[in-house]
């Protein structure tokens, strides 16, 4: 009963966050100088007169007040209608439908890869026989989080695709085309996760029960995989939930470099073209991803950690 209540509270909270994100971005976007109609139709190539442009503006945004538009937009979004992209002349829904799978693929593959890295780093830093080797693994998260994403992306393309010809980057199938960008995006996502996991492992190793298990005669490897690792992953889950939202921001850069046409590219173009409807939709998708990931984590944690089954809350455990 109480866990049902807990889920309900979290759901309401999630909805409130979504509403807040909508409101904040709506008014931020309203404050932007100029508008998409101007950006698109003032292009001298089109040779439109100012009167024609004004007519376009009325057509697109109507002449109603921002407050009216605010409620109008909310209602529309609740019906799954995201409006019209002024810049590309296509319904936003069409754009999102085309872009979302690309970014989701990127996010999912990148996320899984990042988990693989995280695990490998943790294993290397804990189990490798030589101390210097372990220290190198311990330094990897710091190193990776210092690599600019666009820079590593460029080098991944040049080396893996063009020099070694492992995978093409243009004209490939959706999943093949995801691998290299996912590789690029997985490094900065893995870095904070791995850093946190290493920290947790270090803390877990100091706990008395680890020593108690060693006295049972368990080997280092067995202690690590059976006890230390499972007891260290909970906070990392929280971090993973947060980083899922960041994947969308990461996608802006990755998709630019790898020429993917996902949400990131859409966002980038929408920002430069001030395509408010598209931006609003992208923010809502990002926020939904963030909120959903956190909900999932919130519900997952008690399954992983039995002692937290009565009182779970990602709010308190999240850290840098």
């Amino acid at each position, binding site marked *: 009963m109480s866990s049902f209540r807990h889920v309900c509270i979290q759901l309401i909270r999630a909805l409130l966050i979504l509403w807040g994100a909508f409101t904040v971005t709506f008014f931020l976007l309203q404050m*932007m*100088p*100029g*508008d998409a109609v*101007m*950006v698109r139709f*003032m*292009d*001298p*190539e*089109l*040779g439109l007169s*100012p009167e*024609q442009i004004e007519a*376009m503006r009325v057509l697109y945004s109507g002449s109603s007040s921002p407050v009216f538009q605010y409620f109008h937009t909310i209602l529309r979004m609740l019906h799954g209608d995201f409006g*019209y992209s002024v810049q*590309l*002349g*296509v319904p936003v829904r069409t*754009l999102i439908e*085309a*872009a979302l799978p690309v970014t989701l693929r990127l996010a999912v593959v990148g996320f899984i890869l990042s988990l*693989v890295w995280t*695990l*490998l780093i943790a*294993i*290397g830093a804990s*189990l490798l026989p030589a101390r210097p080797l372990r220290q190198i693994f311990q330094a990897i998260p710091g190193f990776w989080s210092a690599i600019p994403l666009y820079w590593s992306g*460029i080098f991944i*393309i*040049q080396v893996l*695709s*063009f020099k070694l*010809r*492992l*995978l*093409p*980057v*243009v*004209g*490939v199938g959706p999943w*093949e085309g995801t*691998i290299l960008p996912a590789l690029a995006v997985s490094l900065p996502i893995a870095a904070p996760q791995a850093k946190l996991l290493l920290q947790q492992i270090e803390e877990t190793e100091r706990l008395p029960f680890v020593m108690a298990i060693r006295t049972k005669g368990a*080997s280092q*490897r*067995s202690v690590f*995989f*059976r006890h230390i690792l499972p007891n260290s992953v909970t906070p990392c889950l929280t971090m993973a939930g947060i980083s899922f939202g960041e994947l969308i921001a990461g996608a802006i850069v990755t998709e*630019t*470099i*790898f*020429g*993917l*046409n996902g949400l990131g*590219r859409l966002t980038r*173009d929408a*920002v*430069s*073209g*001030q395509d408010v409807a598209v931006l609003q939709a992208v923010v809502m998708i990002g926020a939904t991803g963030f909120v959903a990931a956190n909900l999932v984590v919130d519900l997952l944690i008690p399954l992983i950690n039995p002692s937290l089954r009565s009182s779970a809350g990602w709010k308190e455990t999240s850290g840098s």
Partner: protein
Amino acid sequence: MPVPAASPLRSLPAGLFALICALSMPGAEGHSQNRTITYLDPQEHTNLYPPAGGFYPNGGILSQITDRLTWQDPTTLEIRPWLATDWSMNEDDTEYTFHIRPGVTFSDGSPLDARAVAQNYQTYGKGNPALHFPVSEAISNFDRAEVIDPLTVRFHFTHPAPGFLQATSVLGSGIVSPGTLQRSFDELGTATNIIGSGPFVVSADIPGKEVDLSARKDYNWGPENRPARAKTDQIKILVVPEDSIRVGALLAGQADIIRQVEAYDEEQIRHAGYSLHAPSTRGVNTGIAFRPDNPLVADIRVRKALLHGTDRQEIVTVLYSENYPLARSVLSSKAAGFVDLSEKLKFDPVLAGQLLDSAGWRRGENGLRYKDGHPLRLGIHISLPHPQNKTMLELVAQQWRRLGVELDIMSGSAAGVLLDNLDPQRTPLTVSEVGRADPDVLKSEFFPKNRDALLQKGGQSNKVQHFQDETLNAMLLDIASRTDRAERLKQVVAVQEYLIDKAYDIPLFEEPQVYATSPNLTGLGFEAVGRPVFQNVELNRP
């Protein structure tokens, strides 16, 4: 001893490696025979309403899927038959009559007849406010279209329209089906909605990523140099914004044709045995135009000083290649009516210094010039579509700094740039260039009701206070309406001289569109203004 459950330490990296290897296989050997030709464009298409075809990615698609009434020979610039078998015009160029080739159909099967052509031109010439279609900038003084018989159409003009014949050959005058023009303007953002009669048909449009073209098997109404159906069945147009990826993908065999090769990459492409193509855009050369409404450049001595203080040769040598000839006038040397004004464009820093001195701009402590305590500081926005524009402006800034003039290179959001570019106080300079193989191009660029590069009062911007050059405007109008070709070209020469004498523009180089193709690809053709034509493209197996 107990055996630990698993040893991911060993198996994980191995598995990962195997995965990567497995996935890389199809990529490595994926080039099957008779495959699709892949074309990489740095930008995605926008609205494909044919008059908006001036934008390169749009042109790249429209030139494959639409035909025009006439065809302009890129070498002789002569107007030749295409959809129109022949044509005639009246004495003062106010009536044009075209005879349409029989048997031409749109890709949806509907006939391309006089009625369809009339509807196209009616829309291009007058716009369609209800559906938000704007007027084509190539067509001036249009009055109405008249269907004489199913294969004859006549266009009426309010004033003489000598440029109209050429205008029927440009990309912006591609003929689309009447159904296409009954859609709203916004629906033309989707390439599959454009129904033309060209050698290719859009089979798929993935926004922002890809447009697929497939050949029309029954096509046989091409212009004289390419009458028959396309040699390749499939063309895939991919959007790849990154320069280094387009070049890398071409060299790695992942693409066959790429557009926009920067000058610094030409060497390695040629070195690798790939071909470069640099069709000229034949219009107004890439240059820097002044907005004399801004008091800083209102003084002709300042403008002249900057004209002579710009080492144009250095710009071309350092940043560009032989595909980018040094501009010798405002117009491209390949354009009709071109006149060589090199003598008036000489680099002369001494003269430039004297001119600035005489205009009252004295060098201050830091080497910059001041008048009444204000520095000579001029703002300009980067124009992204032009090759290496940012670097070029940095180099110009470097040169002007020696004169004591500061060039302030600005960046901003798209809206901010547009607003700035309409305000001569913020942007006394602008980057100018327009590609079109007709003398009318001068009017397109400089006339207040058109692009209004100089920003005149009563033009595109309401921020302009005083500047208006009636002489120039009259000359430009004259070009557009003069019927006699020789007279027209004479006027074109006069305008070029006028622009340079008034130092309204610093022409820098003739801008080409540079393409690179893989060695076993042949048949890439070009429009008169450098848009690719894929009809004859084919891959020869090595």
